[in-house]
């Protein structure tokens, strides 16, 4: 489903990603762990072309992201073409980024109505079903400011799911939450993984990674230092840097 090949990216002279490669098969859950500033969020944002890459290729469902290949050359896509690619990739942000001027339901169906041009009545039925699914069926008329962080993040997940994405990206979805609210969000993500959704999760939740992930990637200073099954990377790390990081977070 996702095949990233030797991704490189710099901000000015600072290299943020150095030859990062990663493969995720359909229905799998990949967790990316690592210290802050290791480039894991940047990498995630490259997958739906919120960030441009300097070198390498990212395939999602067989399509090159942000580029078009012809005559052996890569041509950068227009912004409007990249917009279309993003419809199939859901993203959940650390700070939720719900639209504060819309109710929970309107947040969820914004994409259906404006992008997919679904009839409003039909969209509302779908939207309510999604809010039910994340346990917030009774909060549909609330504005984000009237919801807790955990509830907001679950609305954000429902908003991403409304577009029926092939792939879901989670950028530290629980990092901005009070500890007692983390569980509800992780539960929604576990349920989602159980439905066979392909997911890439940047996270500090080692318990979630161990329980749900099919593969774990440890990144540090823009490099994938170590990858494998959760048992291999979290249970029996081979690299000194991985061991050092895990000793701090576990």
């Amino acid at each position: 489903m996702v095949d990233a090949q030797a991704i490189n990216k710099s901000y000015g002279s600072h290299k943020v990603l150095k030859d990062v490669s990663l493969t995720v098969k359909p229905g799998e859950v990949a967790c990316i762990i690592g210290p802050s500033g290791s480039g894991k969020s940047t990498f995630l944002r490259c997958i739906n072309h919120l960030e441009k890459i300097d070198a390498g290729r990212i395939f999602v469902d067989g399509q090159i992201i942000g580029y078009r290949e012809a005559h052996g050359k890569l041509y950068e896509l227009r912004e409007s073409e990249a917009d279309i690619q993003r419809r199939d990739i859901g993203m959940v942000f650390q700070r939720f980024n719900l639209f504060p001027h819309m109710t929970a339901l309107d947040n969820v169906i914004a994409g259906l109505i404006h992008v997919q041009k679904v009839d409003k009545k039909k969209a509302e039925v779908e939207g309510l079903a999604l809010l039910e699914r994340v346990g917030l069926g009774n909060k549909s008329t609330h504005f984000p400011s009237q919801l807790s962080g955990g509830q907001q993040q679950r609305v954000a997940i429902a908003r991403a799911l409304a577009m029926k994405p092939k792939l879901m990206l989670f950028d530290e979805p629980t990092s901005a939450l009070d500890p007692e609210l983390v569980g509800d969000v992780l539960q929604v993500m576990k349920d989602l993984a159980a439905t066979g959704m392909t997911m890439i999760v940047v996270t500090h939740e080692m318990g979630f990674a161990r329980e749900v992930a099919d593969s774990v990637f440890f990144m540090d200073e823009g490099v994938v230092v170590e990858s494998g099954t959760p048992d291999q990377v979290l249970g029996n790390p081979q690299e000194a840097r991985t061991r050092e990081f895990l000793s701090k977070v576990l």
Partner: protein
Amino acid sequence: MPLRHYKRWAVALLLLVALAGIIVDAASREAYEWSAFRKYLLDGRVIKASLVTLELTLLSMFFAIILGVALGVMRRTENPIFKNFAWLFIWIFRGTPVYVQLVFWGLFSTIYKEVFIGIPWIHFGDFSLGFHLTLSQTASLFWIAVLGLTLNEAAYMAEIVRGGLLAVDSGQEEAAKSIGMSSLQTMRYIVIPQAMRVIIPPTGNEVISMLKTTSLVTAVPLVTDLYARTRDISNETYNPIPLLLVACTWYLFYTTILMAAQYFLEKRFGRGFNRNAVISA
């Protein structure tokens, strides 16, 4: 015992006494000619002129807001043509006095008697690539005034809009993109509605400011607005002071209405930003 604000009461009393003094004095001062004030306040010509002022204000603001939003958005795009055009527009129209601009637009049809729109120098007999526009000397002064006020105001609105757009968190744009919205859709449904909360208070200020700026249209020269009309009447009757008061009363009247409208607009676009807001479907 709740806290007692003795000093506040004392100051308030002092100010009230001073105000009462000024009012009593003004009521009996002959120069104000209150009888004339009463006579002309609801004079048909004055009411009509006040409506011209209101029309000038609303039309100019309406077009200025549209143009200002366009310019404000253009300044924020990555397209260098849009960006620089908007910058140039704002530079010229904010950098010169509105009175001078109004004089210029009034003279425009004298400076340019005819405008050719098309590709010059290429002729095939009588046929040319384009068309000639004859500017009539009698073009509506009212619409020239609206044009002049609009162009000037749009420059200020553009800056207000730009400020509003900057106030919206960049995460909003990313979230909108992540559900596949185009840049235009993101602007229209996500960024601008949130920017409105920041844009409306200074815009209300601009509307009220515009109401008073319309008194400069005499530069065009348009003389049917409230200030010019009351001045004309007083030129005939030799009593400028009561007619100035009449004009002020009408300006205050419309300002009050506009302030009320602003209050309701602010409430509407503040939705979702107040934790105690009433939940409505």
